């Protein structure tokens, strides 16, 4: 009777355990480690990204990581919300704003080497006051990107689409910002809310908020 009680509580009967316990333990540990390794090796890794920024510089991290992960054979989901939705527009009009960003180098992508090396320290007051400053900064950044052999945002987005990355858009933001679905690329997989994306993120090996 006591043996049955012990077994049902997950313990082996005393005499059995004394005789075989160590062997069983060793067998289980070995089998478990092997099985775990098998499962890990056969599993397709997955990445979930929440893209929330809509400037040209911040468009890069989600698209670089998503396209690279897809090249590695991973399953990738990207949820675009708030300003991140800008990255899914049919026509990309992304700009970069150096205003209030002291970490952004202000260098010229043309001219002799000594000239290109100068980091122009432009006061915030000037950046804020000069009309079209962001347009100029964006133009310079695009030129720098091209010079350095870095892909354009459009190119990386195309790779993501081609590789079957799931691009999902936040329906709430569409309503909030007064957009219509026609403003966006038709390759968007779904229009969803947080409740749909969270379970996807939960099952992902890597989850990033950008």
């Amino acid at each position: 009777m006591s043996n049955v009680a012990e077994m049902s509580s997950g313990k082996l009967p005393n005499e059995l355990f004394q005789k075989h316990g160590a062997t069983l333990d060793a067998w289980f540990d070995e089998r478990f480690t092997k099985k775990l390794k098998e499962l890990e090796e056969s599993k397709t890794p997955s990445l979930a990204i929440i893209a929330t920024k809509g400037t040209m510089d911040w468009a890069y991290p989600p698209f670089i990581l998503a396209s690279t992960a897809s090249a590695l054979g991973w399953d990738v989901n990207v949820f675009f919300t708030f300003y991140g939705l800008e990255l899914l527009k049919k026509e990309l009009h992304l700009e970069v704003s150096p205003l209030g960003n002291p970490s952004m180098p202000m260098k010229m992508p043309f001219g002799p080497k000594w000239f290109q090396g100068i980091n122009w320290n432009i006061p915030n007051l000037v950046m804020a006051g000069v009309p079209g400053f962001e347009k100029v900064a964006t133009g310079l950044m695009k030129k720098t990107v091209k010079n350095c052999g870095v892909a354009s945002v459009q190119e990386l987005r195309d790779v993501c689409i081609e590789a079957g990355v799931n691009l999902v858009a936040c329906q709430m933001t569409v309503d909030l910002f007064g957009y219509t679905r026609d403003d966006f690329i038709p390759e968007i997989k779904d229009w969803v809310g947080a409740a749909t994306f969270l379970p996807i993120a939960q099952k992902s090996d890597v989850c990033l908020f950008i």
Partner: protein
Amino acid sequence: MSTTAQELDARGLNCPLPILRAKKAINGLQHGQVLRIRATDPGSVKDFDAFCKATGNELVSSEQNGGEYVFQIRKH
């Protein structure tokens, strides 16, 4: 010595383009065929190593010639 089935010129391209272009080229290869890649991005040395480990393709060789890197990848 393995014969190269396809060449990929990734010179002048920066992360992650060499990997993305290589992946695309490998997709068009048959099992066992070799892709030869030329690149100038110093980061591509570690990236191609990691890429091959993750995708199960074989990194046959990884060499440096001056400012150029040459990789040979055999499709799994």
